[in-house]
């Protein structure tokens, strides 16, 4: 009886999504604004429900796990989803199609998939949740049907993502063949027997990781990221940049850190290779980008690379995944998603005449036209660059410190050097905003009240994090310790 209550937040989101879908169906397109507001409220309500939960355990026939770690990640995820919805009305308001009520519903359904992913405790649950997420994201990416770029991005995303899902499924079937069961516990138990690892397990594991790498856009599986980021409507890009990264990275940490921890000797080198490739590629390729969305795509690749360093860190004493490393990853995720949403939040509102602002050069003179807005953007960019005292530095610091403690100092060295290179492109935007004179055409920025509040909150978080970091840092610590320390 109690077991179904574990999934109360998920059920809330699902029911709310269906109810809102009905409202949209009956009231038509003009209900877009209302449905979006209701969706934001219900996502935040679900976040509150998650945060209020205290009990931990496995429910729904061993498919669904709830603990402090899952709660921490879900709260982040729900806030990120709500945040990306907040900036939708302003963006779609300026478009021909307007804000359709399906949009928030699809975001909610994709978010539901991600919540289930985070709570997965079984390979089947994992796969089904992942597909639910993907389905929502495909449609969202192609949401602006009349725009060629959006449709193209949707198709690209669908092809590559479906391909990776297939590879992952094949890998999962190999893992199943090894363990003889689909539950995480079975996997952990079988591996803990300590027998030699058959080649099938190794191949399966690598396939599963390749699937994950594509979802989190780690190089060399990053190809789709810049194109999809660029083609998707901006609020979808913001959603894609924040929510799925949180869910997939958090799930990857669970999968590797709990059921597959005994196979660390297999997955650690793979993670390290992915991390190095992502950091290097994301930092250098970003330097060449002129489109803000593409630039943010490479920024995502570089940042994910750094987070993978944290996952690759193993505890030198206990041998498990390093508590500090995963704690660092959670902190990193928290500050990363806020800064990313902040960047997109600023850009979403900007118009040059009627046209959307997409090129970095369009931001010239922003600091004169909108001093506060450019201050917000500058804070987000410096945070992404990892310059203290802004929040972004904390993520980098703790992740790389954990890596050094785990003996992976070469990765930490590459990490800091990559962050210097990446600082080049973040700084370039600041430079264009502050140092360059505007082209003369006026940048306008229609924003809603909620949009302003969202930006203000994000800025306060990024700037004032240093004064009171303990809620996030201690919360992450507790969450990770419950997950990794039995």
């Amino acid at each position, binding site marked *: 009886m109690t077991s179904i209550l574990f999934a109360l937040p998920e059920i809330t989101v699902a029911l709310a999504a269906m109810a809102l879908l009905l409202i949209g169906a009956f009231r038509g397109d003009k209900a877009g604004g209302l449905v979006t507001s209701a969706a934001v409220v219900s996502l935040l309500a679900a976040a509150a429900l998650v945060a209020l939960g205290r009990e931990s355990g496995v429910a729904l026939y061993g498919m669904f796990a709830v603990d402090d770690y899952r709660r921490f990640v879900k709260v982040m995820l729900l806030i990120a989803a709500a945040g990306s919805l907040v900036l939708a009305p302003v963006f779609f308001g300026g478009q021909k199609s307007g804000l359709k009520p399906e949009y928030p519903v699809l975001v909610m359904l994709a978010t539901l998939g991600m919540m289930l992913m985070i709570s997965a405790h079984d390979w089947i649950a994992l796969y089904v949740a992942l597909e639910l997420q993907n389905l929502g994201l495909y449609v969202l990416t192609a949401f602006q049907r009349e725009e060629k770029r959006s449709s193209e991005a949707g198709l690209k995303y669908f092809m590559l993502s479906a391909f990776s899902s297939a590879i992952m499924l094949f890998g999962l079937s190999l893992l199943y063949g090894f363990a003889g069961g689909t539950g995480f516990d079975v996997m952990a138990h079988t591996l803990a027997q300590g027998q030699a690892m058959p080649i099938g397990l190794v191949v399966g594991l690598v396939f599963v990781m390749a699937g994950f790498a594509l979802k989190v856009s780690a190089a060399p599986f990053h190809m789709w990221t810049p194109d999809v980021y660029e083609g998707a409507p901006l609020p979808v890009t913001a959603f894609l940049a924040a929510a799925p990264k949180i869910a997939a990275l958090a799930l990857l940490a669970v999968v590797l850190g709990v059921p597959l921890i005994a196979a660390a000797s297999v997955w650690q080198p793979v993670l390290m290779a992915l991390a190095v490739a992502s950091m290097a590629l994301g930092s250098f390729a970003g330097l060449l980008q002129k489109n803000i969305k593409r630039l943010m795509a490479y920024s995502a690749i570089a940042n994910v690379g750094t987070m993978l360093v944290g996952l690759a860190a193993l505890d030198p004493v206990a041998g498990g995944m390093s508590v500090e490393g995963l704690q660092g990853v959670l902190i990193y995720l928290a500050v990363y998603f806020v800064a990313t949403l902040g960047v997109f939040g600023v850009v979403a509102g900007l118009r040059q005449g009627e046209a959307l602002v997409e090129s970095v050069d369009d931001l010239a003179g922003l600091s004169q036209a909108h001093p506060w807005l450019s201050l917000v953007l500058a804070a987000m960019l410096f945070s992404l660059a990892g310059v203290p005292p802004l929040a972004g530095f904390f993520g980098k610091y703790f992740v790389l*410190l954990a890596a*050094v403690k785990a003996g992976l100092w070469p990765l930490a060295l590459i990490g*800091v050097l990559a962050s210097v290179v990446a600082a080049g492109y973040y700084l370039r935007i600041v430079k264009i905003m502050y140092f360059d004179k505007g082209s003369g055409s006026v940048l306008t920025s229609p924003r809603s009240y909620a949009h302003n509040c969202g930006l203000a909150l994000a800025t306060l978080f990024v700037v004032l994090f240093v004064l009171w970091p303990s809620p996030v840092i201690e919360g992450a610590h507790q969450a990770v310790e419950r997950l990794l320390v039995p």
Partner: protein
Amino acid sequence: MVQIPLLSLITFLPLLGVVALALLPRGQDEKQARRARLIALMFAGVTFVASLALPIFYDAVVGGFQLIEKAVWMPSMGLVYHRGVDGISLWFVLLSTLLTPLAMVSGFVVKERARSFMAALLLLEAMMIGMFTSLDFFLFYVFFEGVLIPMFLIIGVWGGERRVYAAMKFFLYTFLGSVLMLVAIFVMVMKAGTSDMTALMGFAFPKEMAVWLWLAFFASFAVKTPMWPFHTWLPDAHVQAPTAGSVILAGVLLKMGGYGFIRISLQMLPEASATFAPLVVALSLIAIVYGSLVALAQTDMKKLVAYSSVAHMGYVTLGIFSGTREGLDGAMMVMLSHGLVSAALFLGVGVVYERLHTRDIARFGGVASVMPRFASVFMVFTLAAVGLPGTSGFVGEFLAMQGAWLMDHRVAAVAALGIVLGAVYMLWLYARVFFGVAEKADVKEMRDLTWREAALFLPLLFLVLWLGLYPTTFTKVMDVDVKHLAFSLQGEDR
């Protein structure tokens, strides 16, 4: 008795000023700028007055870290909010709190976005004070790097023609140096299990590791100081920065490198410091001679002063790595003196630049006849930069040379060459600008110092003479710590 958290107070007061500026209601541009200047100056002034309590409350007889503030910050990461000053850092804090209001007053001429300019200066001040008083490595790094953002904006937004290039170079150059330091901090924290700097000072790192750690810190501090050949960002940044930015840059930011060498390289990695001392001494000598020679060839006044900074910082690193008490004392005095003198010289360049909008030395000549007051003030600072006895410059250079002499006579001989060269380029600059007959029409039109400008120079003038005539006031506060440090360095071989 409840202890007032003095250090936190003077760190957060400027930040409070930033908040106050941000809340300033939108008004007429000119009116709002005036208000912003007043508010900023008020906060900086109060901070300065509050910081004067430091030497009063600091017990110089006991020495060591005092006015300690400690609070648990992030328990799961073992991070502690740990602040304190010793006789060495105390003076840097005072230098920061003194120069910030002066820089602000000189920045009153900034018309464009005056409010943001003032906010950036206040932010800079908070970061500098925080950096000099941090006793936890995490905190130290946060403040050390935090300086970059406001300085980047000051150069880039309010700078000269090539400001974008200079700002980017400044940021990326120093950022690259600092992240190497960050890795070294990681390794230290991993090895020692704590990021408490006072604990790390007593920790013996394995020899092999210490060498790498030392090099990583060197990368950061050598860029910051700057030492030859890592100095190339400095002339660009100085020339492009607005006067207020140059004042802070030369006055305080360069000292962060010297402070880092003392606090971290010497105190935490003494053996590696001894190993690398010959290298640093060699680089210092090159910096002294090369910096002086290049300064001699400059036609831009600001660039000349910038290269003279490179040369003066050479004395600082020379003194520090001479490993003697005299050398350390000398390095400290050169840093304090340079903080005052270079600030004054940049202010002076700003004075003439505002009148003629050029810094080309050849454009001037005979200024002394039209600006007698300015000429006499500038003379004092020129002589202080040359190291005339009775001015602050003499004490530091003399002690640093003495330290070099104790280490190796030949080193002192080369360093002495730098003093001669220094006299040549500074006096030649003075002669070209001030002496002769004012021929050009616009030079004849130049007005003498206004009251605002005079008010900027007077405190510096006073301090330069005080430091030169009675340095004991300053040395006695740092004596215990310097002696202790020098003793720990030479403990074995002497």
